[in-house]
């Protein structure tokens, strides 16, 4: 379903992703783990056509993201690391907007929106503005939106960041359920190792732009002789704290948080 060979991404002199290769099979739940600034989000952006790779070969659902971006775009749904809903629109309008962008015929769109909003338990709130939603509700809406066009692959970039344990476990239930019911291939990143251990069939660990290990959580644990994936992760990536470089957009987000009551 996803095949990446010798992928490299450079920003000037900085090598964000350094010659990585991996593949994800159809129907699999795959976790992409790594410390801050390891190259997770950059990789997702390349896989989802938002960035162009410097080198390497990528095949997503049989298509090349550089040569056939629109075919690739139709193949996946994505929940971004930071919220990407329009909060001045209602939940239903956000779904509707997405459906029109993906050219889903009107009657199919209506029934699919209803089905998905019920699935994430937001149907009762469909006419509320997104700005009145809690973090967990927004996440659920984003997942529902990402699934609207029947994607073969669902990308989740830290989908549970900043959510309470209840909501987090709820969201993983949805994801597993989906994977089982609709056979959607799931590719996700997270910092919560126990979530990866519980949810993912296979895991790849990336550090400083390189993949340092991949396999099932069991394989990684036995390889490092540790009891949990978290310990295995720390063993593979070291204990030093990573600082993420703050860019302009990041700074602005922080400032906005200050302004927001």
């Amino acid at each position: 379903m996803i095949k990446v060979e010798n992928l490299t991404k450079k920003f000037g002199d900085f090598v964000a992703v350094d010659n990585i290769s991996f593949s994800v099979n159809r129907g699999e739940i795959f976790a992409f783990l790594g410390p801050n600034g390891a190259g997770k989000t950059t990789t997702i952006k390349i896989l989802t056509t938002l960035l162009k790779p410097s080198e390497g070969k990528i095949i997503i659902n049989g298509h090349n993201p550089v040569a056939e971006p629109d075919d690739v775009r139709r193949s996946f749904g994505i929940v971004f690391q930071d919220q990407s809903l329009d909060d001045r629109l209602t939940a239903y309008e956000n779904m509707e907007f997405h459906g029109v962008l993906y050219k889903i015929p009107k009657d199919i769109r209506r029934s699919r929106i209803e089905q998905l909003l019920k699935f994430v338990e937001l149907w009762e709130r469909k006419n509320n503005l997104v700005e009145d939603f809690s973090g967990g509700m927004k996440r659920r809406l984003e997942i529902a939106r990402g699934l609207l066009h029947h994607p073969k692959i669902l990308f989740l970039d830290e989908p549970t960041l900043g959510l309470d344990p209840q909501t987090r476990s709820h969201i993983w239930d949805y994801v597993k359920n989906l994977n089982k019911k609709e056979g959607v291939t799931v590719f996700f990143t997270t910092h919560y190792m126990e979530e990866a251990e519980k949810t993912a069939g296979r895991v790849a660990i990336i550090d400083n732009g390189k993949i340092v290990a991949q396999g099932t959580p069991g394989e990684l644990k036995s390889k490092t002789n540790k009891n949990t994936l978290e310990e295995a992760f720390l063993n593979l990536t070291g204990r030093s704290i990573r600082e993420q470089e703050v860019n302009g957009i990041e700074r602005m987000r922080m400032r906005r948080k200050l302004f927001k009551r």
Partner: protein
Amino acid sequence: MSIIYILWLRQLKRHFRSRARLVGSLGQPILFLLALGFGFGPIYQRAGGGNYIQFLAPGIVAMSILFTSIFSGIEIIWDRQFGFLKETLVAPVSRFQIMIGRTLGGATVATFQGIIVLLISLVVGFRFGNIIMLPLGLVFMLLIALLFTALGTAIASVLEDMHGFQLIMNFLVMPLFFLSGALFPLQDLPQAIKIAANINPLSYGVDGLRGTLVNGAHFGLGIDFLVLGVITIILLFIGSYLFSKIQI
């Protein structure tokens, strides 16, 4: 087509749902109309210019369109910051469609804003020179709106965050407004200001509005229309090119 429509609709919904913005963006034009209109009115009259409100109103309509449309274009930075832009950029639609939908939406909103200001100026004492020309006036309003929304989009595509916004307000938008003939006649000006006004696209917008809503255009309606049309098309091209280059 439906894609352009939904993007257009989104811009409208966003605008009309935020009451604060709707009302807030009317504050400045009203203040300008009242303070300048009645403040300079007597002097203007004495100098033989006639009724100043009559002269000023088209300029203030143009101003409110300028501000609203530049801001609509710049809103892309906002969308980028709040992540919504990504949602449109990973969709299987061309960036050109996204840019056109947004620009039309922004321009519609700005034109609407201009119409409101025009209605307010009627209350303050403005009278149409020839009501038959009004539809042509609306065309000029839409042209001004398109031109500056496209300009805003082009600028927003190269700015990473809102830091540059003040810079644009003070060194682009304000000079565009003050050197456009919105507030004073373009006849008998010092050479430097004359040149600045002649290369300022808003001058042609203000002139077109004045020519259609009151009458007596400085450059002539044909030239106004031609200049605005050509610059709008050029800016739409530049805007779509820069927008297509955005990387998140």
